[in-house]
């Protein structure tokens, strides 16, 4: 069964996709059977690889194209779009706490 889908989302958290957001994306993408890829205007990354995602250097305001191909492609794309568009909920709060000192 072939099921490809792609949707765009803008990176909204102020710090952009640094290591921790990249980890959250890869962890989420890893829950789906579908292949997941992320694209910026310049680069493409395997959505399940932290190493590749940080290679996007996606700063706040960058438009990301989220692509998935597989049986659960729709769900995978929607989940990642939600994570990115909400600005990685919990992450900024955790960081604020981390940097209180």
């Amino acid at each position, binding site marked *: 069964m072939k099921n490809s889908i792609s949707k765009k989302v803008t990176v909204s958290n*102020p*710090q*952009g*996709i*640094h*290591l*921790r957001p990249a*980890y959250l994306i*890869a962890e989420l993408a890893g829950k789906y059977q579908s292949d997941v890829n992320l694209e910026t205007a310049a680069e493409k990354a395997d959505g399940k690889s*932290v*190493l*590749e995602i*940080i*290679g*996007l*250097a*996606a*700063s*706040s305001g960058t438009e990301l194209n989220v692509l998935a191909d597989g049986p659960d492609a729709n769900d995978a794309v929607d989940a990642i779009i939600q994570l990115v568009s909400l600005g990685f909920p919990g992450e900024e709060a*955790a*960081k604020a706490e*981390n*940097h209180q*000192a």
Partner: protein
Amino acid sequence: MKFSEFVKPEAIRAELAATDKDGVIRELVGALVESGQIDAAEQDGIVKAIMKREELGSTGIGRGIAVPHTKHPSVEELVGTVGISVDGVDFQSLDGEKVQLFFLLISPPDRPGDHLRALENISRQLRDETFCRFLKNSKNSGDITELLEEADNNQVA
């Protein structure tokens, strides 16, 4: 962002002595003090901040690579260093593998873009199997400096 913009040869450690996570971070931060890139008075605070960041989730991203890092107000520009552990260190990595290659980064709080560009460069080079293999086999900081220079010169961007 090229390696030469944030890694000083004097801070590179080709054979880390430490055998645990805390020790590696201390050793690399110590190397940055010795190279004059961070103030000795800030050393403990920086080590603590990096360890606190590790508590949020290991920066061991798999394939024997870790990128321990923090923001810190005592630095005016991004500083970093490279360390290699011959035997590898348990870093609670994503893939459970021991870490041999360390890229430690300390960035000013107001420069998230520089941090992203440093990560981008590390990612780009480490996806190259040859670069990884050569780095793991480097015997001294001179070898590593040469390899980083080569990587910098091969960059298209």
